C-alpha cells in the first residue's frame, strides 16, 4: 500500500468512526508526522550518484536511467548538493579492477572490456569519439549484457567493498556521500488464474459487476535495485538497502520497458529519499474535548 492510498484509507476509516461515534466534542485535524532519516548525513554537504551495475534487459540502460532519476530526485528533495559528473560504467570498472587483481575479468564477454581510467571525471569533454569514451552507450561493451540475474550480479559485489577505489573517487569530488549499487530489471512472464470483474445484465437489463476467475497470460518486469551508500572520506559502506518491485500487464497490452522501469522506480523512490532526509507522513487525527 502506498502512502497516498494508506492516507486515503485511513481518512475513510476515520470518517466512518466519526459517523459511528455521532458525538460533537471532536475536531478532525491534519497532522504531519516527521520520520527521521535512516542515515545520519550531517557530515556531508554533497552527494555523488556515481553509477550502478545494471542488468536484466537491454531495453533499458539501468545504470544511466537510475543515475539520472536519483540525481533529479535528490536535487529537489534532499539538503545535499548533487554533484553533476559523468556516469560511471561500473560494471566495466569492476571488470577492470578484477582483471588487475587476478589477471582475469569477471564476465565471459571480457573481450569487450576497454582499458579506461578508474575514475572518469566531470571535466572530460571534447573526446574525439563519444561512443568510445562512453561505454554506457553500448551496454554490451561494458559487461552488463552478461548480467541476467542476481547470480550474475553477485560476481560484481566485490567492487562495493573496494575501500581504496571509493576513497580515491571521494577525494576526486571533495569527500561526498557516494550513492552506488546494482539495478536488476528483468522481464517477467506468468500465466494462471486471476480474479477479474465482469459486467453482467439480468433479464430486466440491470447491470452488476461480478468477480470471475479468468485464465490469463501476463508479462511485465521485476525491478530489484540495491542502493549502497559509501562514505567518500573513508571509502567504507555506510548503509545498503535492497528493494523488490514487480508489475504484470495482460499479454496483449504493450507497455514500453522504460515506462515500466519508471513506474516501478516511483514506488522505490520515497524509501530511497527517506534514507537521506527526514520525510513527513501526512495524516488526520481527532482532537477531543
Amino acid at each position: 500500500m502506498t502512502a497516498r492510498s494508506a492516507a486515503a484509507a485511513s481518512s475513510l476509516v476515520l470518517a466512518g468512526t466519526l459517523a459511528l461515534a455521532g458525538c460533537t466534542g471532536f475536531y478532525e485535524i491534519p497532522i504531519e508526522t516527521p520520520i527521521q532519516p535512516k542515515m545520519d548525513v550531517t557530515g556531508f554537504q554533497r552527494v555523488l550518484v556515481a553509477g550502478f551495475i545494471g542488468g536484466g534487459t537491454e531495453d533499458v540502460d539501468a545504470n544511466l536511467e537510475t543515475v539520472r532519476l536519483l540525481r533529479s530526485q535528490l536535487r529537489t528533495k534532499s539538503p545535499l548538493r548533487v554533484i553533476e559528473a559523468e556516469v560511471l560504467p561500473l560494471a566495466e570498472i569492476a571488470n577492470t579492477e578484477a582483471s588487475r587483481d587476478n589477471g582475469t575479468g569477471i564476465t565471459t564477454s571480457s573481450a569487450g572490456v576497454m582499458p579506461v581510467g578508474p575514475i572518469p571525471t566531470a571535466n572530460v569533454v571534447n573526446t574525439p569519439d563519444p561512443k568510445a569514451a562512453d561505454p554506457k552507450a553500448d551496454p554490451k561493451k561494458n559487461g552488463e549484457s552478461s548480467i541476467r540475474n542476481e547470480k550474475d550480479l553477485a560476481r560484481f559485489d566485490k567492487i562495493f567493498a573496494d575501500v581504496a577505489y571509493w576513497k580515491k573517487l571521494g577525494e576526486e569530488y571533495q569527500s561526498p556521500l557516494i550513492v552506488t549499487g546494482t539495478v536488476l530489471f528483468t522481464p517477467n512472464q506468468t500465466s494462471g488464474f486471476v480474479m477479474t470483474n465482469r459486467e453482467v445484465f439480468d433479464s430486466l437489463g440491470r447491470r452488476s459487476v461480478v468477480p470471475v476467475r479468468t485464465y490469463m497470460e501476463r508479462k511485465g518486469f521485476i525491478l530489484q535495485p540495491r542502493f549502497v551508500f559509501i562514505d567518500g572520506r573513508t571509502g567504507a559502506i555506510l548503509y545498503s538497502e535492497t528493494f523488490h518491485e514487480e508489475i504484470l500487464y495482460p499479454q496483449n497490452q504493450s507497455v514500453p520497458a522504460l515506462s515500466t522501469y519508471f513506474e516501478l522506480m516511483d514506488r522505490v523512490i520515497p524509501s530511497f529519499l527517506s534514507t537521506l532526509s527526514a520525510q513527513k507522513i501526512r495524516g488526520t487525527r481527532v482532537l477531543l474535548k
Partner: protein
Amino acid sequence: MRRLIFASVVVLIVSAAAPAVARADDRDKSKEQVEFGIRVAQNGLWNEALYRWKKAVELDPTYAAAWNNLAIAYEHEGKFEDAKKAYEKALELDPKNLMIRQNYDLFKEINDRTKRRSGK
C-alpha cells in the same frame, strides 16, 4: 450535645464533598486548557497546544481527551515514545472510545514502520 453532633456531621459532609468539588474544579480548568489547545492547534501552533495539553493532564490526570490530544501533539513533534505513553493512558482511562482507538491505530502503523526501518 445535639449541636456538637450536628456540627460534626456538617464537618464530615463538607470534608467528604470537598475533594469532589476540587476534582470538578480541576476538570473545568483542565477543560479550558484542552479547548484552548484545540484552538491553537487548528491554527498550526502545535508548541502552544502541546504546552496547554500538558497542563491539562497535570490538572486532571483522569481526563482521557486531554491525554489523547497530548498524544497527537507528541506525534506531530515526532516524539513517538511520549505519544505512545499518552495514547495508552488515554485508552486506559476510556477504553471504549473509538476515536482514541482510531488515532492510536494510525499512530501505531507509523511507529511500527519507523521501528522496522531503524531495526529496533
